[in-house]
């Protein structure tokens, strides 16, 4: 049988990769992709816990469903913002949208 730790470590690695992506990327769309990776990592974590530790109530799985739902909504909305940003500034790079400063 696969130990729980395998899933957790996988989730941690996936999360860290997404974390790196969010920080390192410039393009708004790439950042969104990295955010999706982090969300997937969280889902794995919760489903693993639900399957191993909470088999009668499996709240983690329910939660993962909601996470996926919210992620979908978030992607749609974020892409709308990105579109608008692109239209205003002719660029979808987040570091070029820097007028909100001193």
């Amino acid at each position, binding site marked *: 049988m696969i130990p729980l730790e395998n899933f957790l470590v996988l989730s941690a690695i996936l999360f860290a990769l997404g*974390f790196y992506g*969010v*920080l390192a990327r*410039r393009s708004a769309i790439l950042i969104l992709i990295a955010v999706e990776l982090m969300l997937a990592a969280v889902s794995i974590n919760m489903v693993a816990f639900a399957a191993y530790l909470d088999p009668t109530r499996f709240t983690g799985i329910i939660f993962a469903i909601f996470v996926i739902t919210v992620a979908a909504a978030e992607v749609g909305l974020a892409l709308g913002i990105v579109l608008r940003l692109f239209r205003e500034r002719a660029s979808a790079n*987040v*570091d070029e*949208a*820097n*007028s*909100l*400063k*001193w």
Partner: protein
Amino acid sequence: MGMEQVVLLPAIPAAIFVVLALFSPLLPRRGDWLAVVGMAVVVVLALAVAFHFQDFFGHGEFDPSGENARAFEWLNLSNGLFQIDLSTYVDAITVVMLLVVSIVALMVMIYSVGYMRGEARYGWYFGALSFFTASMLLLVTAGNLMVLYFAWEAVGLASFLLIGFYWERRSAAEAAKKAFITTRIGDVGLLIGIILLWREAGTFDIQQIIEFAEGGGFDQRYLTVAMLFLFMGAVGKSAQFPLHVWLPDAMEGPTPVSALIHAATMVVAGVYLVARMLPVFDVVLVARDVVLYTGLITAFMAATMGLVASDIKRVLAYSTVSQLGFMFVALGLGSPTAAMFHLFTHAFFKALLFLGSGSVIHATHQQEIEQLGGLWRKQPLTTWTFVIGSLALAGVIPLAGFWSKDEILHAANHNLPVFVTLAVTAGLTAIYTTRLVLLTFFGEPRNHHAYEHAHESPPIMTLPLLVLAALAAVAGFVIYEGVGQALGFAGGIGQLIFAHEPEVFHFDRDLATFALAVSLGGIGIGLVYWWGTAERATRARGWAPELHALLVNRYYFDDLYQSLINYVVLGAGSVIAVFDKRVVNETGVDGGAQTVGWFGLRLKFLQTGRIPNYALAMAGGIVTLSLVAFYTS
């Protein structure tokens, strides 16, 4: 009405004050009747307390039982470390004060109905008077130093309000400020003293402090310092040297106020305080000596200043200061009996004198005695009651002042310098009293306009004069045990006066003769110099003009204080102002702001506006917090 309900006494005028302060314009006659009736009730209750008090004498000994004191916890911090009880305590001193305060207050209020008729703020006047009475009654019934201090400040406030009653007049406003600030100096000392006592004794309860002191709980030197601070409060409130300067100026207030507050009651609060704490003073005789000599200096100095003062109320003010000095001398000699007895009699005849002078001022609108004269034809009642009060003040047998002054002299019998000074002062008292009476009521009228204008005061003003004159005449007799028994007091009303242990009065014929001789001699000198046109007195000024100037200028104390304020206080103030401007403001406040501005100007570039930078900062925070959480759990 027993002694345990004594807390009702201050409550009644306090309630009346609230009603008058808020609703006096809505009440018929602005509510003066409310104040008078309330005060009459208080007098009745005070008498009831006095009668009940007699039950506490078993076998001629005062025996305070638990019923006597009533307390409830008001504030308790740190479980008893700092505990203030609202408590009352009644003993002989309290009873004397209760009778004096309530009776004089009633008389003054009745008198005020006539004297203040038609004044603006008539209702407020009675409200303030009620407030004062409430505070004073609370002061004398307090069983706890904190409550006493509260009442002490409250009477100071009432005094301020009433001295400044005619605040449209600049001098009145100034006098009110002067009185408040001068007494404040003493009050700070009083507070320090209270705190020092509490620090060692751990309680504010007066009886417990006395027990603690008598049990030797205090270090001798520590207690001396504490009691001297406590005495500072008494010096300020009772206008003793060197804080006596406010009382003559306080005469800017309405005359009935002067009679009540600045003659009969508030100014004797200092005497009351020292008498109340006298068992502690007995432990540290150095402090008691300070009381003695302060009183002696004040008595003599004020009497000499009274010799030359030209304002009828100021003469009486100096006389008050001087008589208060007498009381402190008695306290300093360790005889609260004599002090309280003198307080008792003095309250009546000095209130009488003030009200009489008020009657004169009311009739002539003139306060300068140089402008008065011959009024006995116009104001016979005022004149004769005033004469009775004056004779009582001068100490002529059988009026009240004679007996009490005799007691003080009796107490000073074994201390020759003190005795001599007191005797001289008593003589001076007789002289200036005679001068006052002669210049005001006898001789030829010097200001004919004022004289023509004069008339006898209405009955509502002369009635209190008559009552007080009667009291001034007979109040001294309570010293005889038989008189008290005749009035129905078991142990004789004389016991009322004797605070410590009942002491049977013995008439000392030699001493009495001597005192009477001094008084009569003083009166004789006064008659010689001021009879008729007082030309001899005018000539006497030429003998020693410097001395006269010294007295007229009140020993230059006011000038001294003024220059102290001008040079020391204002000088130090300007130094501090520079410090405040340069160091506090420019370096501290502005400097701090400029430092923040300087850093802000540079740190604002951290705000790049680039989202990745913020995300990185957030990430750094998350990582740091995770590390902390990981390593601390």
